[in-house]
């Protein structure tokens, strides 16, 4: 029988713990495929976050470090500085990266650390049960804003790509969405470009992936993907924000 | 032999480097020494002081309650430390900036017109070296040759200033 699809060898055999309809699995697969295509096997260290992807160290088939909440870019900086010829990537969610870890991500970016950061933006704290995230949309409901995010009380959502693109250190900043095959293919291309920037030591590379969280959004998978395509993409437009 | 020295003055008067010259001379002579500077906001334009302990044996406490020798480069320093000098000890007073006389009678006092002598040496920045010369003579812990070797070594990168510093040292030493 002909092999038509094969799991990337950059993923372990450990089954994902993610909820049905969650797009973390797709993001993992894309990162693993890109690493494999770039010949990074045996040549890469990944950094896992705190949040839903906390167990990422079980899934990526490479040396991994588990960072404290928000500190993945600092940990990745430490690794890359002593292993400058290895690929180093951090994989973070929106609470980890855009809230508690804001200082670390901004400074790793402005230093132009030659690392790649994959940023999963699903506009919610998933692991802790659906609290408001820094990227939660205006009006979007969460367990800590049950009537919907009210900017008067809760402030406004943060646009990370736009923010980081103002800095000199990054060489590649892009936002994709994991909503449909076409967007998934585009997202993979973005991830590949990001790692190529790292390979060429061009600068800090960053890919934000708009993702769905049907569990905490209280939606079906289809509704959740539709919400990403409509509401989320309106606030967080897709595209390349910086490329040098 | 153990000699405890407190040196105090304004920031910029070369108080710390005066202490360091004594510390370097100690190493040069194979003696043990601790040099403890004051640090922090008081360094910035305020008063500056350091404690130097020179000994034949390893120095225990770098903290000095009663110095054998006080070098007061300005008025507030004399006011602050005069009472702490050990009875029988000595005070070297920079009389260029301190018009008061030492009131204590149980210590030896040496008035050094350091700023005027520095001018005479040809470099106003050498007032601390004038005092270093006076200290070397008064304490008798180091030979003038050792001190001059240290001066030469410390200014090795700026050889042009060495003659004025030698002159300043001698003016202080020969008072």
């Amino acid at each position, binding site marked *: 029988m002909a092999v038509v699809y094969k799991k990337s060898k950059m993923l372990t055999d450990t089954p994902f713990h993610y909820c049905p309809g969650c797009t973390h699995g797709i993001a993992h697969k894309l990162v693993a495929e890109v690493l494999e295509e770039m010949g990074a096997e045996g040549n890469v260290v990944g950094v896992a976050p705190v949040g839903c992807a906390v167990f990422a160290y079980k899934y990526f088939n490479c040396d991994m470090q588990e960072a404290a909440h928000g500190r993945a870019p*600092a940990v990745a900086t430490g690794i890359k500085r002593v292993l400058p010829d290895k*690929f180093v990537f951090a994989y973070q969610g929106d609470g980890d990266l855009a809230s508690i870890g804001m200082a670390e991500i901004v400074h790793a970016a402005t230093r132009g650390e030659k690392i790649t950061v994959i940023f999963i933006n699903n506009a919610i704290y998933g692991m802790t049960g659906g609290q408001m995230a820094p990227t939660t949309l205006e009006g979007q409901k969460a367990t800590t804003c049950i009537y919907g995010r009210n900017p008067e009380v809760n402030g406004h959502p943060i646009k990370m790509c736009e923010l980081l693109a103002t800095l000199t250190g990054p060489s590649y900043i892009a936002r994709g969405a994991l909503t449909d095959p076409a967007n998934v293919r585009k997202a993979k291309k973005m991830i590949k470009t990001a790692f190529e920037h790292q390979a060429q030591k061009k600068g800090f590379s960053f890919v934000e992936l708009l993702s769905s969280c049907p569990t905490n959004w209280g939606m079906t998978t289809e509704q959740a993907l539709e919400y990403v395509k409509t509401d989320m993409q309106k606030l967080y437009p897709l595209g390349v924000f910086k490329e040098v | 032999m153990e000699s405890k020295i407190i040196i105090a003055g304004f920031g910029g008067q070369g108080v710390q480097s005066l202490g360091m010259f004594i510390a370097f001379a100690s190493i040069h002579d194979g003696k043990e020494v601790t040099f403890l500077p004051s640090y922090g906001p008081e360094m910035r334009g305020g008063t500056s002081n350091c404690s130097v302990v020179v000994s034949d044996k390893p120095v225990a406490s770098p*903290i000095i309650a009663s110095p054998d020798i006080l070098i007061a480069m300005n008025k507030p320093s004399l006011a602050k430390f005069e009472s702490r000098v050990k009875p029988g000890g000595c005070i070297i007073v920079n009389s260029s900036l301190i018009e008061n006389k030492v009131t204590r009678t149980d210590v030896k006092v040496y008035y050094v017109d350091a700023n005027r002598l520095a001018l005479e040496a040809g470099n106003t920045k050498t007032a601390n070296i004038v005092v270093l010369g006076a200290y070397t003579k008064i304490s008798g812990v180091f030979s003038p040759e050792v001190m001059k070797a240290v001066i030469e070594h410390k200014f090795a990168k700026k050889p042009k200033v060495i003659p004025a510093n030698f002159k300043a040292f001698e003016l202080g030493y020969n008072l």
Partner: protein
Amino acid sequence: MKELMKGNEAIAEAAVRGGCRAFFGYPITPQNEIPEYMSWRLFEVGGTYVQAESEVAAINMVYGAAGAGARAMTSSSSPGISLKQEGISYICCSRLPCVIVNMVRGGPGLGGIQPAQSDYFQATKGGGHGDYHMLVYGPASVQECVNIMYDAFDKADKYRVPVMILGDGMLGQIMEPVELPEFKDLSKLPRKNWATYGDGTGEKRNIINSLLIEPDELEAHNKLLADTYAEMARNETMCEEYLCDDAEIVLTAYGTVARIAKSAVNILREQGKKVGLLRPITLYPFPNDAFRKVAEQDCVKEFVCTELSMGQMIEDVKLATGMLKPVHFYGRCGGNVMTPEDLVEFVLKEGK
């Protein structure tokens, strides 16, 4: 000939000679000479230096670099060390060897910038969350700083623990003659079979992690850490005894204060008083046996514990001596430092 070096700079140079190749720092008085020195020195020996955006980031950079097998360190002073506690807890659980220098200043809060010993509890009892310890040294001179720093990475590697050098503002600023050791040959160090060098895949991949979500797994890990600390206590405990053999009063102090106490002992001995000094060099593990032995001497009537704090090490002194003899306390704090004469006066008043 010996060189005259400032404590902070001597520690930095000794670290480089002992194999430090990665330093991550953040400015805070009174330890700034360490990052300043490392910022140019490490690049001369093929190492790396980052001025981090915060103490929090700096300790996590240490985590990353140590996890990747490098000899990595950071330094700070009290408020900055508090910020590093989260990272230190993770480092201890993940068993990452590294070195942390704390040039203590007075607290709590922003406190002052003058010398203190008020971080003893934080350094020796854990500091962050969870059940852990570091190997903590309290050097008393610039030369001792150099000697301890030079071997600190070897100790850290041996036990897979962070080593903390607990100094104070005086020790960082003081200049003394020192002899610097030769560079260690890093090419002779073995590969760390647990580190993430980036070449691991499949069965051979390594994971640096402090998340142990199964209670049995976490309990076993805590026991492993406890065993490590017990082994450290057997092998690494260091203490200096000075004139204790016939002493009636034994002063106890660590770090710079122990030198002030030693001068006090000398003054009291000149006056015919039988006084000695017991100085812990390792603060964790605490030299319990040496203290117990001295406490059991018949001649010893009492202890005087002196610190630049309101009384922290005294708790360990009481535990170690089993309260066989009374333990008096003399402390200064806020950046004030006692003189030998202050101690002499206290001992003459308390000593019966």
